[in-house]
């Protein structure tokens, strides 16, 4: 039995990691031309993912996420730009070279895309058959992977006999089978319920920690980014709108990612004076909801919290909240106080 952590050259306790990033994308542009009208699906997208990191790519439908994943894996030929994996530009490869380069990626799909004609074990073995492993090697690897994703007792089941979460575990094991360097997850939890989503995300994180594999997660779910990502890229209309370490972008109330990742359920406007406040700025002296209320009270302003979303992301308490003032005439003064404390107040409608 091979120790799973020895699978990857860049394992956490292995040899010193090479400094080159696992994946780097330079000015990737894809223009679709259909009957005279051109559509720019990707507009000079650049991206660097260091080894053993989990990078989230978020954006609404039509932001270019699907085109990006197809260009990353050479299924689609970009108009210009480079996709460099292990020092090799994927966009220049064809035929057998491209097929070999694709094995550097393991892909996890939204709907698992398992073969109904094969058992769980045989699905996991498929990439190994294609990569030309012999039977004994395949069997040993499949046993190891079933154990890794906790499905040893389901080896002989067909996908139809497995739950959605179990199917996705098989999908992840299959993606890992041929020892890829990068795990590419395309909306991996979008078809799953909340509890199963949590389990799958925990598994992805565990795999990164144990195997040192690099993970790229494409998603429209803010919770996925909050829970597993180290860094995040926001795509909009095919271009990179924001990009950075998760802890930094999420704590900065001026970013769109701050709002996307910390959703706040706001009450219907009813004439009460409310201020929206952002918690988590590194320079703010106030780090909790209690702190905000006592800060205001200290200035003689009575206030209450009407709604709040607070999370601990990347070791930092971040959140958005709505503060309701007892006296509407004090709105301007309350805003000054909060602004001074770097809580980024905005008068809510």
């Amino acid at each position, binding site marked *: 039995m091979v120790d799973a952590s020895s699978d990857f050259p860049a394992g956490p306790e292995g040899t010193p990691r090479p400094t080159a990033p696992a994946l780097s994308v330079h000015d990737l542009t894809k223009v679709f031309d259909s009957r005279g009208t051109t559509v720019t699906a990707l507009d000079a997208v650049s991206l660097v993912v260091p080894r053993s990191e989990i990078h989230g790519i978020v954006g609404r439908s039509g932001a270019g996420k699907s085109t990006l994943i197809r260009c990353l894996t050479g299924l689609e030929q970009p108009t210009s730009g480079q996709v460099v994996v292990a020092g090799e530009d994927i966009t220049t490869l064809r035929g057998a070279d491209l*097929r070999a380069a694709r*094995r550097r990626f393991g*892909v996890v*799909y939204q709907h698992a895309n398992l073969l109904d*004609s*094969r058992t769980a074990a045989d699905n996991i073995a498929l*990439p190994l058959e*294609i990569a030309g492993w012999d039977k004994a090697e395949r069997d040993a690897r499949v046993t190891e992977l079933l154990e890794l994703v906790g499905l040893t007792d389901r080896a002989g089941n067909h*996908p139809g006999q497995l739950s959605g979460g179990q199917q996705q575990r098989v999908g992840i094991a299959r993606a890992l089978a041929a020892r890829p360097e990068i795990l590419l997850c395309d909306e991996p939890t979008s078809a799953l319920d909340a509890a199963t989503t949590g389990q799958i995300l925990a598994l992805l994180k565990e795999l990164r920690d144990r195997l040192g594999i690099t993970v790229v997660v494409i998603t429209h779910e803010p919770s996925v980014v909050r829970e597993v990502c180290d860094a995040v890229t926001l795509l909009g209309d095919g271009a990179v709108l924001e990009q950075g370490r998760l802890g930094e972008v999420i704590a900065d109330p001026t970013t769109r990612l701050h709002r996307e990742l910390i959703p706040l359920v706001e009450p219907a406007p009813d004439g009460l004076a409310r201020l929206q406040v952002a918690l988590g700025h590194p320079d703010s002296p106030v780090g909790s909801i209690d702190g905000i209320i006592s800060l205001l009270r200290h200035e003689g302003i009575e206030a209450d919290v009407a709604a709040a979303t607070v999370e601990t992301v990347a070791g930092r308490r971040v959140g958005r909240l709505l503060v309701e003032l007892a006296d509407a005439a004090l709105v301007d003064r309350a805003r000054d106080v909060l602004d001074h404390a770097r809580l980024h107040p905005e008068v809510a409608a």
Partner: protein
Amino acid sequence: MRFETDPTWLDNPVIREGLPTALWETLAMTLGSAAITAALGIVVGVLLHQSAPGGIAPQPTLHRVLGAVVNVGRSLPFLILMIAIIPITRFIAGTTVGWRAMIVPLTVGAVPFFARLVETSLREVSAGKVEAATMMGATRWEVTRKVLLPEALPGIVAGLTTTVIALIGYSAMAGAVGGGGLGATAMSYGYNRFQTDVMIAAVVLLVVVVQVVQVAGDRLARAVDHR
């Protein structure tokens, strides 16, 4: 002509001795042509599917030519096809009578029909499965052999069942033009010599054969379907 005193039912030598032979000939020409049709139809179906626009190896010209040939084959009534290809039958089988010779027109008639059914089954395999295999670095051949055909197998088996039943119908027609089998017996004794008992017995046997094929085909399709 038929007389009141002629033996009927099991006393009728046509039913006692002729029908078993005819049944055997029907089964032999049906199964013989079905086996060849299965092999050729899968090849043609795969080619149709792969060469289609948006397929895994789009070849518009090949697709159009193949599609046209298949459509011509399917639009000809079997009786006319059978007569039209008599020279080909003679070239391949050396004769144009008997159940062995009939395997040629039966196969020619059934391959286009079955190939279309195979193509339809292949088209129903989700693009995501093909993409997953492509991303594993699979070649076109590997995608076909490891993904498309196994995933489409339940549909292909159901299509083959339909094809075999159509072949039983064609074989009766072939029998009428010198091919032997139940069709020939029903035609020459049941119809031309007014032996109603022979006609009924032949029809019953055909119904039983079709039922057996359908039930067996359904079972097999269910056994290979893991969805």
